[in-house]
């Protein structure tokens, strides 16, 4: 059944943070609420958990209206950006504390068994006798997550739990989460501004924009079919490239998007791709950085058939881990391309990339809605 919310509104002073949010989160899913910092993710999570009351709207758990159920009477756990553990209790005592104050009267053996099990699951069994201040940030957060999980709550809310960890620890915890929650019955609701985190772990993603969830869908669907421009540009690291161009059909029936400088991006033939688009109209053309194929020394004019070649200037290269992001400049706009492995290229040089028209996205310049997508982009039945 899961969580369902209807028409949730919340404002602080004159600022409308949530403006009629509707959402359904199915049981046992890993649902990420993704949005830039300050968009209201934390507020939404707190309302869902029952820590904060909405101005209006209803929250249902398994179909039951939760308005009169206080947070401590719900089966929820909460993990925050800060590592929240009782400072004067050891890790073991911290893990045991939710069980000890519970009205279910767990026996000493039961508590010990659960502490050991949970600690092992989150790989903190070697620090059980330490104080929270004596362990590393990653371990402190693992302790906080264990504290939240030990009561086996139906719903676990996590508010940017990886934000205060360094890069390596994030990666580690991220892969642990994936493994952990695919085995658990717990439904996870996870708020993050990091598209990468959400795409790595979630089963479902909801994108919060201007006080509303503008798209929520299974992970692959929202990634491959972002229905609105903000979703497309936010979900993806680096973001989707967007150029604006006019759709033109020449006498032979070939269609292309003509950019401001006259460059033509092939859109296929009549009846080919994008048959529904009308010509002589302006569109926003989106393409993922990884779909820009670098033409290393190949003759750009030759053998690319239907594909378009664009030639931006290289601004600089950013190498993270084993992937290089090429920051390019094209018609005064920033465009990104990906390259596996570190590269050595001169800044300022002009590079050539080919684009597959079947991997293009077309957005409406006025509404920002997706109106067409290339045939090589996976589609999902609605």
């Amino acid at each position, binding site marked *: 059944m899961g969580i369902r919310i209807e028409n949730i509104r919340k404002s602080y002073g004159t600022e409308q943070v949530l403006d009629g949010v509707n959402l359904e989160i199915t049981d046992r899913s890993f649902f990420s609420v993704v949005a830039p910092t300050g968009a209201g993710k934390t507020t939404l999570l707190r309302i869902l958990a029952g820590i904060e009351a909405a101005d209006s709207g209803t929250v249902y758990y398994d179909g039951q209206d939760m308005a009169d159920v206080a947070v401590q009477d719900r089966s929820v756990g909460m993990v925050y950006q800060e590592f929240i553990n009782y*400072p*004067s209790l050891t890790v073991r005592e911290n893990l045991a504390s939710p069980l000890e104050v519970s009205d279910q009267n767990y026996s000493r053996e039961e508590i010990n068994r659960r502490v050991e099990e949970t600690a092992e699951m989150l790989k903190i069994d070697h620090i059980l006798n330490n104080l929270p201040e004596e362990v590393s940030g990653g371990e402190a957060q693992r302790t906080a997550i264990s504290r939240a999980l030990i009561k086996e709550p139906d719903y676990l809310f996590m508010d940017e739990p990886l934000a205060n960890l360094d890069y390596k620890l994030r990666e580690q915890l991220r892969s642990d989460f994936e493994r952990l929650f695919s085995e658990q019955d717990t439904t996870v609701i996870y708020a993050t501004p990091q598209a990468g985190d959400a795409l790595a772990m979630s089963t479902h993603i909801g994108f919060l924009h201007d006080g509303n969830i503008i798209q929520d869908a299974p992970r692959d669907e929202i990634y491959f079919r972002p229905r609105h421009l903000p979703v497309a540009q936010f979900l993806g690291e680096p973001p989707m490239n967007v150029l604006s161009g006019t759709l033109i059909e020449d006498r032979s029936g070939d269609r292309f998007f003509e950019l401001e400088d006259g460059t033509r991006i092939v859109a296929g033939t009549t009846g080919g791709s994008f048959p529904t688009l009308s010509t002589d109209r302006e569109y926003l053309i989106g393409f993922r950085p990884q779909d820009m194929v670098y033409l290393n020394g190949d003759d750009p004019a030759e053998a690319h058939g239907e594909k378009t070649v664009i030639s931006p200037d290289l601004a600089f290269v950013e190498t993270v881990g084993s992937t290089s992001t090429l920051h390019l400049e094209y018609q005064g706009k920033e465009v990104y391309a990906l390259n596996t492995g570190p590269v050595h290229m001169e800044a300022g040089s002009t590079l050539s990339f080919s684009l597959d028209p079947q991997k293009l996205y077309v957005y409406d310049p006025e509404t920002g809605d997706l109106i067409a997508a290339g045939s090589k982009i996976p589609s999902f039945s609605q």
Partner: protein
Amino acid sequence: MKQRPWLFLLPALLLVSISAFIPLIAVMNYSQLTLLPGTQPYFSGLENFIAILEDEAFRGALYRQFIFSFLVLITEIPLGLGLAMCMPKEGPGVGVSLVLLGIPLLIPWNVVGIIWRVFTRSDIGVLPAAFDWVGYSYSVSSSTADAWWTVLAMDIWHWTPLVVLICYAGLQAIPQEYYMAAKIDRASPWKTFRYVTLPNLRGVLIIAVLLRLMDSFKIYAEPFVLTGGGPGNSTTFLSTYTSRMAIGGFQMGRGAATSLIYFFIVILLSFVIYIVMLNLGQGAGGDK
């Protein structure tokens, strides 16, 4: 140019040496001399120290000092913390309560003494009149108990606000998430206080306790103005004793030796309390 940093430190160093280091060294020097008016000073080694430690009046003052400081701490710290927890967290009430609390701190010691001296005067004072009304004969100049609790009340009135301000700042710095976590754990208000508020306040409480300990050891003006250390010697604390010895009794050497012993006691006590508080309640799983 390697010496340049020292150049910038020089003014501060000069100030500290003139105000602290040099006087302290001078006192160390005096403490080993016999200095009596009209005679040549001469070196007498540890004689001054021995004489003081054997002096009944000194032991009495020290004993009273310990009791006084103990009472000050066990009243002002819990009271200050309690008041801080009652204060509003936001809204216009914050400014109002902070200003009200700040007022006693702005009043100089001797003025506090004079105010309370007027309060306690048998002819025009409000306290004797009030107690007379309920049938109790109140007098700071004849009753030891009255003198004691009046001096204590003065100190509590004057300095609890400092503890409140320190605790309030500390409380504001505790992330709300701790309280939410405790709530989700169904922790009782007492357990929330014991396992969330107190441990997170450890640092500021140490500062509050040390400040109040050192300050209460220095209490001088209040009993001096109120009772002059009486009745008898009952409100004579270490500072009163020291100044009497040095200035009233013209025994500068002994006075210097008393100050050093006094200084040593304060440092030692502060250190012990600091260490104890730093380790108090860590991993306290036993007493849940």
